[in-house]
């Protein structure tokens, strides 16, 4: 075959279950990182719109730094660098969750901040006129409306996170990517396992996208 397009998927088939086990690892990292990112992102967003100047400044600075440096650098600092300071090793899994969580918190906080500011000013005034305290107003009136508006943007962030999570391979976490790479090494053939990894990521992203659309559709029903 001339150049010898030399793809041989049959030799990879026995390794597919091994690669698929990485789906659990990837999803676990993504889910925990997304939770951390969301909770911390809400807190950061509240700091940004609040009246306490120091907190606003800190939250802005945080966002600027985490958006302004590579994710893989943040991951390596936490996994390889931090033990130097704290005196003990961090496992790959928590290191990945922390790095991705802190990173996506920066992005999510911007999304949520914009969502809060987009809620009609009258909602706030109506709540204040009823004597609703600030915290309650945020929790019961403003945030639920903000979240509804920003659901597509949040979903996007989670999809990005799923794809970007592949960089955990640099700290040796056994995710989809790492497993595909290992299989490649064993069989002296990288193309096929990496293609399979690509397919798995793509399917995950499609599922997330559909899920997002379904949730959005349900929300729109109450409009």
């Amino acid at each position, binding site marked *: 075959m001339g150049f010898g397009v030399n793809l041989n998927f049959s030799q990879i088939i026995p390794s597919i279950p091994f690669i698929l086990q990485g789906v659990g690892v990837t999803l676990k990292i993504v889910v925990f990182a997304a939770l951390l990112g969301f909770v911390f992102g809400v807190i950061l967003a509240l700091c940004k719109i609040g009246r306490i100047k120091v907190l606003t400044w800190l939250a802005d600075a945080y966002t600027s730094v985490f958006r302004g440096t590579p994710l893989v650098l943040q991951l390596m600092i936490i996994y390889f660098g931090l033990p130097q300071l704290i005196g003990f090793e961090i496992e790959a899994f928590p290191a990945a969750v922390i790095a991705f969580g802190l990173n996506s918190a920066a992005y999510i906080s911007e999304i949520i901040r914009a969502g809060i500011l987009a809620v*009609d000013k*009258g*909602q706030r*005034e*109506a*709540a*204040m*006129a*009823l*004597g*609703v*305290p600030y915290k*309650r107003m945020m929790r*019961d*009136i403003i945030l*639920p*409306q903000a979240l*509804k508006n920003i659901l597509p943007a949040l979903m996007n962030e989670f999809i990005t996170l799923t794809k970007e999570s592949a960089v955990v391979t640099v700290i040796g976490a056994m995710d989809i990517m790492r497993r595909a790479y290992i299989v490649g090494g064993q069989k002296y053939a990288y193309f096929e396992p990496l293609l399979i990894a690509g397919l798995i990521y793509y399917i995950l992203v499609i599922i997330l996208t559909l899920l997002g659309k379904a949730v959005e559709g349900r929300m729109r029903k*109450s*409009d």
Partner: protein
Amino acid sequence: MIKVVDLHKSFGKLEVLKGITTMIKQGEVVAIIGPSGSGKSTFLRCLNLLEEPTSGKIWIGDQEITNPKTNIMKVRQNVGMVFQHFHLFPHMTVLENLTYAPMKVKGMTKVDAEAKGLELLQKVGLAEKANEYPNRLSGGQKQRVAIARALAMSPDVMLFDEPTSALDPEMVKEVLEVMKSLAHTGMTMAIVTHEMGFAREVADRVLFLDGGQLVEDAPPSEFFSAPKSKRAQEFLEKML
């Protein structure tokens, strides 16, 4: 009772209220009228401190609300406000709109709050809409719900900022009817309005604001038939 003494309010360099002094007695219904930009909304919003006065004093009942020691949240629970654009909570049903603040702010039980909410919906003629979401209502229905929501806190005073200005003409009447019957219950009301007929019929007094000043303060019979100031005369000529 509401007492206002030498109330000033500036937004930056713009002085919007230039020393307003007046009093609204218990059970009195006061219509606040005047040209656009004269400071009517700002004045009303100072009465529940949605705007913070630059100087001057305001009493609601025997509480000086401009005193920094006063708990504004407590005062606001006692002063209902109805906005031009309703501002119902869109993610709550009509009944939830009515029960939210009584439960979460006043600590009323769900049973009591719902009973009271349904009773109020009955009064504004919307009992059958209790479980609808606000976006399923017409403008007039929304505003009646907004009035009921404010009343659910059992306020002593009700403030209205152009409650019918955003409504289609055919819906104005149903809202004014609700306000009229509220006036008959002895509620103390301050109403910013362009509905001259309503002001003439329902108000005990008319406050005419122009350029941030209280230019005239008179019973409607006097104000509408023989306005004293030139500015009020001109304004009425344009309105009628």
